[in-house]
């Protein structure tokens, strides 16, 4: 009875996580389109309805990322198997005893973990740069720097998200 309850609970969490992930992806697409289109295609600052759409989806995306960070962080912990080369390197440097077994690295999972932590890490400057600029804390020079930080972090962030999604799809396809 308790086992089936646990399985049901687990599947609920998995579904919720997937739902949040999908929602985050939708938000990401909207944010990327509204953010990059005016800047990269039109050569203008984001403005008009695009900025409203951007600002509407941004907090939803932030919530999704926070939820994913909490729900996925445990699964994305690095294990020894993720980076045997690193373990060997450390052991060689420190002359520590070998565990006696050479574990094969799971490159896809490792990539997913790396990109997940990068996403969470980059989300902080991405979000804070724009939210802090809304408070009367920074003058024009710093405002421009924050805007630049937001823009360039967004470029890197987008690449990482695309990579993460690609790896996730690849893993799922393999299964």
């Amino acid at each position, binding site marked *: 009875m308790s086992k089936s309850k646990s399985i049901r609970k687990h599947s609920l969490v998995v579904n919720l996580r997937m739902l949040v992930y999908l929602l985050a992806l939708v938000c990401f697409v909207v944010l990327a389109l509204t953010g990059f289109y005016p800047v990269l295609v039109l050569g203008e600052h984001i403005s008009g309805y695009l900025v409203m759409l951007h600002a509407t989806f941004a907090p939803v995306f932030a919530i999704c990322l926070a939820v994913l960070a909490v729900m996925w962080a445990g699964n994305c912990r690095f294990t020894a198997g993720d980076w045997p080369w690193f373990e060997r390197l450390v052991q060689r440097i420190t002359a*520590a005893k070998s565990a006696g077994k050479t574990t094969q690295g799971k490159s896809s999972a490792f990539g997913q973990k790396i990109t997940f932590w990068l996403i969470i890490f980059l989300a902080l400057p991405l979000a804070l740069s724009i939210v802090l600029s809304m408070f009367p804390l920074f003058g*024009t020079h710093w405002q421009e720097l924050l805007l630049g930080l937001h823009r360039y972090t967004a470029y890197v962030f987008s690449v990482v998200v695309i990579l993460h999604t690609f790896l996730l799809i690849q893993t799922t396809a393999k299964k």
Partner: protein
Amino acid sequence: MKKGLILKGFLCLLILCIAVGVAQAQQKLLGDESDGSRAHPNHRLRLFAEPAEEDALPIEIDPDIDTTEEVLLPFSTRRTCGVCHSYEIIKGGWHFNSVDPNVNPGRPGQPWIYVDARTGTQIPLSYRSWPGVYKPGQFGLSDRQFTKIFGRQMPGGGPGITDDPDQVMRQYVSGKLEINCLCCHNGDPRQDQGGTNGYAVQVSRGNFRWAAAASSGLAMVTGSADDMDVMYDPFDPFSVETAQSGTRKPPTITYHKYIFDYENTVFFNILREAPAHQCYFCHSNLYIDNSSERTEKWAEDEDIHLKAGLTCVDCHRNGIDHNIIRGYAGEEEKSDNEMAAVSSCEGCHLGEHSATEPTAGRLSAPVPEHRGLPPVHFERLTCTACHSGPWPADRTHLTKTSMAHRLGTPNVNKAPEMLPHIASVVFAQQADGKIAPHKLVWPAFWGVLQGENVMPVELETVTKVIEDVLSNEEFPSSGDWPDLTNDHIGKGLSALASGGSVDGKVVYVAGGRLYSLDDSGQLNEKMDHPAAKPYMWPIGHDVRPASQSLGIRYCTDCHGTKAPFFFGNVAVDTPVAAARESKKMVEFQDISPSYAWAFAFSFVFRPWMKMVVLACCAVMAFVLLLYGLKALGCAVKTLAGEKSGSY
């Protein structure tokens, strides 16, 4: 042989250079170039009057002349000041060059507004080619007529000194309204621009030749040139004496006692830098508070720059050419004044980027921080949008200006409703795409349709025909519009069309509408005709400090669903009572009203958004920290040779 030729050539060149140099040096008069001293200039001058003939020598004024033999004339600023300062250079200055078509008109400025409630006329006029204004000549006003109406608040020159071939005799009687240096530079407290015998009154009497002397505080002028016959000769003692014995007195000057010293010179307290109160005679603004109709000066703050100790001419500078800086961003592209770039708001407060020396903070201008203000505001707004003019209200302020309402002159109608009706502050998009605060006037005039353009019917015709049509109407003593109806407009259009003095289709422009009669005689109204658009000119002053600028409290100072910046009501002013309505400010900004509202509405959720995003960031930071510390723990264990777990 060859050497001799070279030597001769060199000598010729040298002589030529010296000749050019000497000629240039001769052009400059004593006062055209400063020797560098900042000391107060002492001006003890002989007075010279304009001679009867242009080419004759100036007449030196002797107060002790026998008036049966000679006429005591008013001194001429051109002849008196012009001894040391090149009048010809000065008359190219901004205040005097409006009639020169070669002068770049620059950013639209305040027009002269001709108003007549009795004919339903309120038309912006200017000699400068600003879009939306009409040239006085198009309205049937000669330079002399224009000067007589508006010269009260002109420092002379411009239309006041042009030759009028149609009124040569009249111009001989009244003289020309020369550039009056003393309007701005006389430090004598008796300088009288708006007194009962001052400059404005003299101009209205047609005493152009006498106006400068009469207002200088050195003399008294009585009589009126306009009362004199065109055959009157102001230089002929017999003519003057004869006129003096009549009921209508000719203009006569009496110099005050003791102003002439033993050398027959007169002391002038000349100020290089015009004091603000002298600028105010022509550049005062009165914003009538919608709620309290407050009009008292003591209840209004002045420009923050004046309160900080600056004067107008600290920013609005000029040299001997009097090419004064108007002080708007981008003026350096249109003006020859080398200091234009560093004298705008940005020039002083931020510094000129292309300058070779640091220019920011000139005159102690604080470098603004604009904390929390997204930089996009600097691309979309002028500095004045947030910092100038009265704080915007739900409805635009009725505004009076010196030039439009002849403030500071005798018998001014002090009623708030007095025409012309100028509305401010209107936040509107200007030519460079930025939103700036403007003053606005809705043109109202009778015109003739010429293609897409409307040319005003000449004043004389309008006065004759329309005054007759509206002769039975009641005109408020406040100087406000009468309450006209479409019937009145129809009658006016018919009368003008049938009079035979107007060629083409007669129309009436008022309140943003173009009225015309169709073939069946029915009145048609056309909205949004280009000729019916309001004329707007940007507001520069009074500048408010940072602590009273828009947005200082929160973004909703402008981005609120009811914020006047976007949703304030701009009164549509017209004599047609049924057409008096209002438009939203956003309609002047090239922004979709629904977008402006939606964007403003999003600010309701802005604080929540900030909180949500900050909370999410905190959660992510906590997760990163937690797992980062765990990873660190594992790394430490691994380095210690213990069995490592997951990071």
